[in-house]
């Protein structure tokens, strides 16, 4: 941060606010991951970090460097785009694996001889 003194006050305040919001949301998400007790509840907590947690920090970075360079810079927005299109992949893998395990546990508890494939295929 070499040109921080060149930054107008409104931009500095807005950047600080956005970074704070993003960091707090990500922290709350991390706390939630610890606090929740079951897998399917836990899955929701980190999405705070991957949605507006990332979003606010990305916006802050974009704003800061746009004001400092007096032109629009937004390669950061790509981070947001890629985070939001790749999260579903991991999440679905984890969720489906858990669902499969729970179903097969229920099936094996109810009828040990008739352990069935839940019969759903990824599309």
């Amino acid at each position: 941060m070499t040109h921080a003194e060149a930054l107008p006050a409104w931009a500095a305040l807005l950047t600080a606010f956005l970074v704070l919001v993003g960091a707090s949301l990500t922290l709350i998400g991390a706390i939630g991951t610890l606090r929740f007790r079951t897998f399917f509840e836990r899955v929701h907590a980190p999405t705070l970090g991957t949605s507006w947690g990332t979003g606010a920090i990305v916006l802050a970075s974009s704003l800061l460097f746009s004001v400092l360079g007096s032109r629009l810079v937004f390669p950061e927005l790509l981070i947001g785009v890629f985070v939001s299109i790749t999260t579903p992949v991991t999440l679905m893998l984890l969720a489906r694996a858990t669902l499969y395990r729970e179903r097969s546990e229920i099936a094996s508890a109810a009828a040990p001889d008739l352990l069935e494939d839940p019969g759903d295929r990824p599309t």
Partner: protein
Amino acid sequence: MRNILPYPVLTAALTVVWMLLNSFSLGHLLLGAVVAAGASRAMTALEPSKPRLRRWQLIPWLCGIVLIDIAKSNFAVASVILRRRARSPGFVSIPLELRDQTGLAVLACIVTSTPGTAWVEYDSATGELLIHVLDLVERQEWIDLIKNRYEATLREIFE
């Protein structure tokens, strides 16, 4: 034209990504276009389904409501975590009429990016979508949200 540029939208998107990562100049436009054309030709080997955008004018509107909804549910989930209040998590099964693969992929991104809802399973044979909701108060409310707010718009865009 089809043989040279099989996926024009993809090529354009890749060129924009290239210039975002480098700089907006004529040199990078040309270089990015060459790289993007090569990359999108390589895509033909994967034979992806070609999405048809019927009403692309709705895309900015959809992005807007999704960003606002995500912001709202960020605060809802944050308050659930911080206040340790009693919650009733549960699964909701939603019958979808949307069949377009790209539309379903976008819906998956929306549902997953929204804190408090998680896409669990989609059965392509029946069109049944299973989502998990962190704070399930009214089941019908969630079905209406997904069906009326997102699915209806996505069907207009893609089908």
